[in-house]
């Protein structure tokens, strides 16, 4: 691969200018190639011209659970990613060869901003069995995807889920004095890294998966970062936000922990859920994720069910919007005499990733439709 420079370069006006024509092209491509998508756009009367990113029609991310949405013929589908939602049907995301190749490349390019160009020794805050399970979970798929970016993979937990002090000790003796990568799901990191009593000061932690389980213990990002710094010397910490429905696109926390940043090929629009207009910085709303990566399915403009807030624009270490995800919108509750949710209720939890994640496939994060 040629040397790819940082993907955190575009200030907001330049980003808009670069994204709008590309998104317009994608919208028309998907309109032509994906019949259900065309029908949706026709029904809501969405038509060009689109002047700003916020003008593009969005799809609710849950549509990938309820409908098969793809813009390539069935015989060109190279891989179907199946998220494992904890409730309801899984999301299904259809990739052709090109899209399947682009997503790990862009994921790597995004993380290069904090990991550098070399493949680093990698400590994983999880157990090896999570990637061996034949019905791979989204968590397992996420770990597998990240493993591409590292070497000498060492799992913090043994097969029984206990901390493997010997393995961790060996890893740190080999690599503890040079830069190394630590990856894990946020709650696994919190559970198992703190008590390690190890010096992780040369490590860079990449974590994702959402704050819900930590929020239940009243642990927020600030305390997470402070505690890991105090107890393990870990100061290079980057959370990220991403979802299977926009595979390959992640929104990465800056070095100071002051919010998530968008790579150049993506952005977010936080919308006021009453007016659906873009909310100004500082005002929470629903997070719409925008990315030019989805070429084989109409996932380039998606309204998530996550609440978020833009903190600032072009005012942080990297250009573009700086935002946080605040939590998940609760599921709508209706009164009524019958089981109106019968269709939406899970019959069983569908194990995810089974068809999705072959080794090397990155199913990142568990937000959006598929949760970890």
């Amino acid at each position, binding site marked *: 691969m040629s040397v790819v420079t940082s993907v955190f370069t575009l200030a907001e006006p330049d980003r808009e200018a670069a994204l709008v024509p590309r998104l317009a092209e994608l919208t028309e491509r998907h309109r032509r190639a994906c019949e259900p998508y065309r029908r949706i756009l026709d029904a809501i009367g969405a038509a060009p011209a689109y002047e700003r990113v916020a003008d593009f029609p969005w799809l609710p991310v849950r549509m990938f659970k309820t409908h098969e949405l793809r813009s390539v013929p069935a015989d060109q589908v190279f891989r179907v990613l199946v998220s494992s939602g904890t409730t309801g049907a899984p999301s299904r995301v259809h990739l052709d060869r090109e899209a399947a190749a682009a997503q790990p490349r862009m994921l790597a390019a995004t993380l290069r901003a904090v990991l550098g160009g070399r493949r680093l020794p990698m400590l994983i805050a999880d157990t090896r069995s999570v990637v061996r399970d034949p019905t791979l979970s989204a968590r397992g798929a996420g770990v597998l995807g990240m493993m591409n970016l590292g070497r000498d993979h060492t799992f913090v937990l043994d097969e029984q889920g206990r901390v493997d002090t010997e393995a961790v000790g060996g890893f740190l003796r080999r690599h503890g004095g040079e830069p190394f990568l630590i990856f894990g799901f946020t709650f696994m990191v919190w559970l198992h890294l703190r008590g390690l009593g190890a010096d992780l000061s040369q490590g860079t932690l990449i974590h994702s998966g959402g704050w819900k389980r930590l929020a239940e213990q009243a642990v927020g990002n600030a305390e997470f970062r402070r505690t890991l710094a105090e107890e393990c010397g870990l100061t290079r910490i980057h959370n990220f936000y991403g979802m299977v429905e926009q595979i390959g696109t992640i929104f990465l926390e800056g070095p100071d922990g002051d919010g998530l940043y968008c790579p150049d090929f993506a952005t977010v629009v936080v919308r006021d859920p*009453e007016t659906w207009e873009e909310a100004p910085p500082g005002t929470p709303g*629903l997070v719409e994720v925008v990315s030019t990566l989805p070429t084989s399915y109409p996932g380039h403009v998606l309204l998530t069910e996550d609440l978020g807030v833009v903190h600032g624009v072009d005012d942080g270490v990297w250009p573009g919007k700086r935002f946080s995800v605040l939590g998940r*919108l609760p599921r*709508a509750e209706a*009164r009524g005499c019958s089981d109106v949710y*019968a269709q939406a209720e899970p019959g069983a939890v569908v194990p995810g990733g089974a068809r999705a994640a072959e080794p090397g496939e990155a199913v990142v994060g568990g937000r959006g439709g598929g949760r970890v």
Partner: protein
Amino acid sequence: MRAQSDLDEQVEVTFPAPATVPAGALIGELASAGALGVGDERMIAFLTAFGRRLLRPALARRHPELGSLGFFLRPSELVRTLESMRGEHVRVPRGLVFHVPPANVDTVFVYSWALSALMGNRNVVRLSRRAGAVATAIVEALREALAEAEPAVRAAVSATQRLVSYGRSADVTAALSAACDLRVVWGGDRTVDEIRRHPLAPHARDLTFPDRSSFAAIKAAAWLDAPRSARVRAAQGFANDAYWFDQAACSSPRTVYWVGEPSGREAALADFTTHLWRVLAERGWGVDAAMAVEKRVATYGLAADGVAGSIAFHGNALANVTLAGDGVTAPGRWLGAGTFVHAGLSSPADLVPLVRRRDQTMTYFGFTRAELEELAQALAGRGVDRIVPVGDALTFHRVWDGVDLPAEFTRLVTVLP
């Protein structure tokens, strides 16, 4: 019958007084309770006192559906119900009635229970643990009415009536099913199927209220000709029908059929939308962000499936869907609070092939009685149990889903001279 050990499972009693008792003990208490008669004076006294509490302005303002319930329990209404039961046979209570109301409509259980109690039955009502604020208000009102009742009334009610809740214990449901003389199951197809797995005693029977859906039919020319005040009133009534229970009540309209010439239908729909939107705005009725997303998911899904031809949102509270083509039928299912599928018909007779067994209530505007009776005849039992004016969809009647409830809650004894 179940072994006694199955009856050790604990049941939380919320009425007449909070307690936790084994299911077996609960059934035993009710089996040995003294008998009430049909239209027992003590029960009438209690129901009317309870109904008066529901009509108190503060409560009725907070939960308008409790006002309707209070109205239903007025002495004159109860007497009318009893009078309608007179006949050549002697009516007697069925005995022990086990009610399984829906988890998410807080008032249905009261109608079902109150009519059964009026008919002199001993009742066990299984309340959902996720019962909402309205159910809590109802239980409080019941307890207060009991506390202030005459000793004889209090004793009779306490001995024969129970509101209970328990987890998803199949054993308790099985024990109550085996012990009861009549089982009343509300709350959808799945609940009915689930409850029916538990056998009843040979003489006992089920009264089931499965999933239903409802629609409105509006004569376009009549709408356009109606004075403004009548259209405003109809829009208010329609808003009540649809929005009180998030459009998820079985009798809330989900589809609106516009009957007449195409140009008139379009003009009428546009005017109707303006009036409905205004009612919602005036009352400040909206939906939250989660429901707004739910509506997008549901309506975009209809478009993706080729069912919806157009989707128009008027704020988050009101979404109008029109069908994609002539061969497409309205889905009839719940699409999120305040989502209406509009379809055009040339004449009321065009409704006949569209009606299905699960259709319950047709609310109407602008049709003559003769037209409606002709329609009812033409439907010939295909579906539709109630044809009522717009605004009356949720008005509970003792005949519900085509079932005469007080009659079902009693048995007849033949006495020949």
